[in-house]
């Protein structure tokens, strides 16, 4: 990803390296602007493929362990609240939409529109993390975080647990109940890595809002905004798969 800082200060030195005139943001080693944009987009996609493989490993682990310890995974997933999961999906899809609109604003050189879209994306991203915090807090309070303080109570005595009771869970045998810890390990690994990507994205968004106000992305060079858009949509796609796998597919599986 090349940043567009070049626009701001290299207007005066452009003629130096030019037999012919070209935009200041065109780097020496590219034939033309189009080739530069293609190369940047290609590189961004290669990076996203490494990300696909990374999250793919976690998804595969989840599928295999769910297959092995099915009753534990069903009971453990009943501890998640579909309401918060759906709301988070809504926030993330909306943020993807505002990001896409931001790319459009950059392409059509609408500076205030771009800043507005980036700010909205930023706020929706923060909102997502806020809801994730509420969910994590509940897990911590119920001792569902894997480790020394992990509690099997919700799975050995489902009647004592509101969420388990509502889902109609039966008590699990001790050895199976212990495997709920595997579910929560994967839950925290997957949503935690996803949240880390969100945090990185939000940090870059903050930087972009600052640069966009200076007009950096609305002077024809949109590569940075475009490639960040790809990253943001990718993070959205990861959640699109996490949401059904973690929250939805075990709703009815204990009858």
């Amino acid at each position: 990803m090349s940043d567009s800082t070049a626009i701001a200060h290299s207007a005066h030195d452009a003629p130096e390296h030019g037999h012919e005139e070209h935009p200041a943001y065109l780097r020496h080693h590219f034939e033309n602007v189009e080739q530069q944009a293609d190369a940047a987009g290609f590189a961004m996609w290669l990076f996203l493929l490494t990300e696909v493989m990374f999250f793919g490993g976690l998804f595969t682990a989840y599928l295999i362990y769910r297959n092995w310890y099915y009753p534990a995974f069903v009971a453990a997933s009943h501890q998640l609240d579909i309401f918060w999961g759906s709301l988070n999906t809504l926030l993330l899809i909306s943020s993807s939409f505002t990001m896409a609109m931001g790319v459009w604003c950059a392409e059509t050189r609408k500076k205030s529109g771009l800043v507005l879209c980036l700010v909205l994306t930023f706020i929706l991203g923060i909102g997502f993390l806020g809801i994730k915090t509420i969910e994590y807090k509940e897990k911590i309070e119920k001792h569902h975080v894997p480790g020394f303080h992990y509690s099997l109570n919700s799975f050995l005595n489902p009647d004592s647990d509101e969420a388990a009771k509502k889902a109609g869970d039966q008590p699990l045998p001790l050895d199976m109940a212990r495997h709920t810890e595997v579910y929560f390990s994967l839950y925290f690994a997957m949503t935690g890595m996803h949240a880390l990507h969100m945090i990185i994205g939000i940090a870059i968004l903050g930087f972009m809002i600052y640069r966009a106000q200076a007009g950096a992305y609305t002077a024809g060079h949109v590569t940075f905004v475009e490639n960040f858009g790809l990253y943001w949509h990718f993070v959205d796609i990861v959640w699109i798969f996490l949401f059904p796998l973690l929250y939805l597919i075990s709703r009815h599986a204990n009858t």
Partner: protein
Amino acid sequence: MTDQKEMHESQHHIVSPVTYAIVFGALLVFTALTVGASYVEMGIFNPIAAILIACIKAMIVVLFFMHVKYSSKLTKLTVFCGLFTFLALIGMTLADYISRAWGQW
């Protein structure tokens, strides 16, 4: 300068806000659908429906929000290769784990 810029802009497809709005609406509908489907008892088809809807949503995002539909052949090939490799790896891994204990019980 103008020459380069015009060439760039003629090659570069700008997706319209109307398309984005339609895609956004479709994503919301599919989200409502997948949440609704999870409350309906369908046995083995519950996870299948959920994954299917997730795949459709992901495909819409990749094609329109990520501009793959309007991208160069190189980008399309890259995305396809990545997807293919991912599915091959996940397929081989699952085939291994599923068949590992065959005949041993």
